[in-house]
């Protein structure tokens, strides 16, 4: 499969602490890639490097390259990059405004102002995020009134509304109950036909359930990357085996 994002010899330091150590990884297009590993292994840091959210951290130093669709992400316009590489955060973080305005925020930012266009984008994004039926009668209500699981699906809708190619998800279900979690997992598998999804998860069952490929990180290193099925059934590296069989982590 053709890679859409490629990292090569990517190293990252927060001050003097090295968080990523020569990561080389191809993310296949239109698939779900899970990033697993114990806390502090660098999987979230790697994810945030892909849409350059790490730029905001003070004292960050990056070497190596990351390309998205063949272009160096550190040389492209960051706002354009983030339009194409969207992100869903660990904690649902809708803006304190109406449901409609939340979803319309992105398109408005990128210059769409006609009400008719916005209405259509908002509806489509909410449908794609499987939340339209629950909110269609209260689009003008404050988004903070939704449940945690609904808020997270709204955040997914908000990310989809700017028509990204890639969706980065940073432990999107870790703050949710089991039922909301399974709804999001179901949604994610539906979305992979049209989007490339990269998902950090703490939950190995979740990685097995939803992902096509899995990357195992440990202490800032990429230990193993491969098709999820083979990585979990026949891990090549000893450390991967120890981790997935629950010997540490």
């Amino acid at each position, binding site marked *: 499969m053709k890679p859409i994002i490629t990292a090569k010899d990517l190293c990252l330091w927060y001050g003097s602490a090295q968080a990523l150590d020569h990561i080389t990884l191809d993310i296949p297009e239109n698939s779900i890639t899970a990033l697993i590993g114990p806390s502090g292994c660098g999987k979230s840091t790697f994810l945030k490097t892909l849409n350059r959210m790490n730029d905001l951290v003070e004292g960050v130093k990056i070497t190596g390259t990351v390309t998205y669709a063949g272009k160096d992400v550190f040389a492209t316009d960051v706002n354009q990059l983030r339009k194409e590489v*969207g992100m869903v955060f660990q904690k649902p973080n809708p803006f304190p405004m109406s449901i409609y305005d939340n979803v319309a925020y992105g398109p408005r*930012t990128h210059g769409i102002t006609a009400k008719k266009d916005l209405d259509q984008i908002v509806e489509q994004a909410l449908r794609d995020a499987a939340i339209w039926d629950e909110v269609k009668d209260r689009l003008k209500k404050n988004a903070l009134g939704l449940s945690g699981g609904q808020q997270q699906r709204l955040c997914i809708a*908000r990310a989809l509304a700017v028509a990204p190619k890639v969706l980065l998800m940073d432990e999107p279900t870790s703050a949710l109950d089991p039922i909301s979690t399974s709804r999001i997992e179901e949604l994610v598998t539906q979305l992979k036909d049209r989007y490339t999804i990269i998902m950090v998860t703490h939950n190995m069952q979740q990685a097995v359930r939803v992902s096509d490929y899995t990357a195992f990180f440990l202490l800032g290193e990429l230990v193993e990357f491969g098709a999820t099925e083979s990585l979990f059934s026949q891990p090549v590296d000893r450390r991967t085996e120890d981790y997935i069989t629950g010997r540490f982590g």
Partner: protein
Amino acid sequence: MEMKKNTRSWQKHMEQVVYGIFLLLGLITIGCVLLITVYLVISGIPAIRQIGLVEFLFGDTWKPTAAEPSYGILPFILTSVYGTAGAIVLGVPIGFFTAVYLAKMAPRKIKLVVEQAVSMLAGIPSVVYGLVGMMVLVPGIRELFDLSDGACLLAAIVVLAVMILPSIIKMSVTALEAVPKEYEDASLALGATPEETWFRVSVPAAKSGIAAAVVLGVGRAIGEAMAVMMVSGNVANMPGLFESVRFLTTAVASEMGYASGLQRQALFSVALVLFVFIMLINAALNYFLKGDRKS
């Protein structure tokens, strides 16, 4: 055994005494507020009765010492309202953008210096504002607009605008810094620029705090007496930007020393009107702060 029991009852006793002291201190504060309110109402009502409420509030001439005295305080009310409004129009945009700059953009060192300066601005006594206004601003306005006297409403507005800056800046910065980082991250991750993020996400999220800051500024401006008295000319004209004017506060402050009889009583009524304004502003402030807590 006996000892222990004694100690415990002594402790309990002590606790009650301390509780009593704190209660007393709290009651003193409430007592002061009540005393002022009751005193103002009691001493403010008679003059209003004698003059007539409509004549008092809406009469446009204040001539308490003329052969045929007239006690209309509309000039004072309008001057206070216009002066405060002018200070808000001038001071809020400056304060607001300064706050956004300090909370979101400023490098740490600059932020430190500016915040120190703002704190100092808050600590300068109002008589000093008045003095500087009198020596610099009043002549400046006279020259700039070619007036016979620069002491006017405009001078008072400028002084008030500077005086309300510290509270507006400080409260707005606090409100902006309290906006969860998650909101801003979400906006940036959608491809919005930092500037778009500040003005379309951070500021709306902090709006009740910023509104409270503005209301606090209104309260400060309407209650200020010393500085405005020194720069506004202190004549009971109907307000105009270049007119010498007298505020509700300065009317009381400047005439109380020599007034007697009905004029003296009418000054209490002026104070009562001012008090009602402040109460309304406090109510508005509570309303905004409550809205903040709810969301």
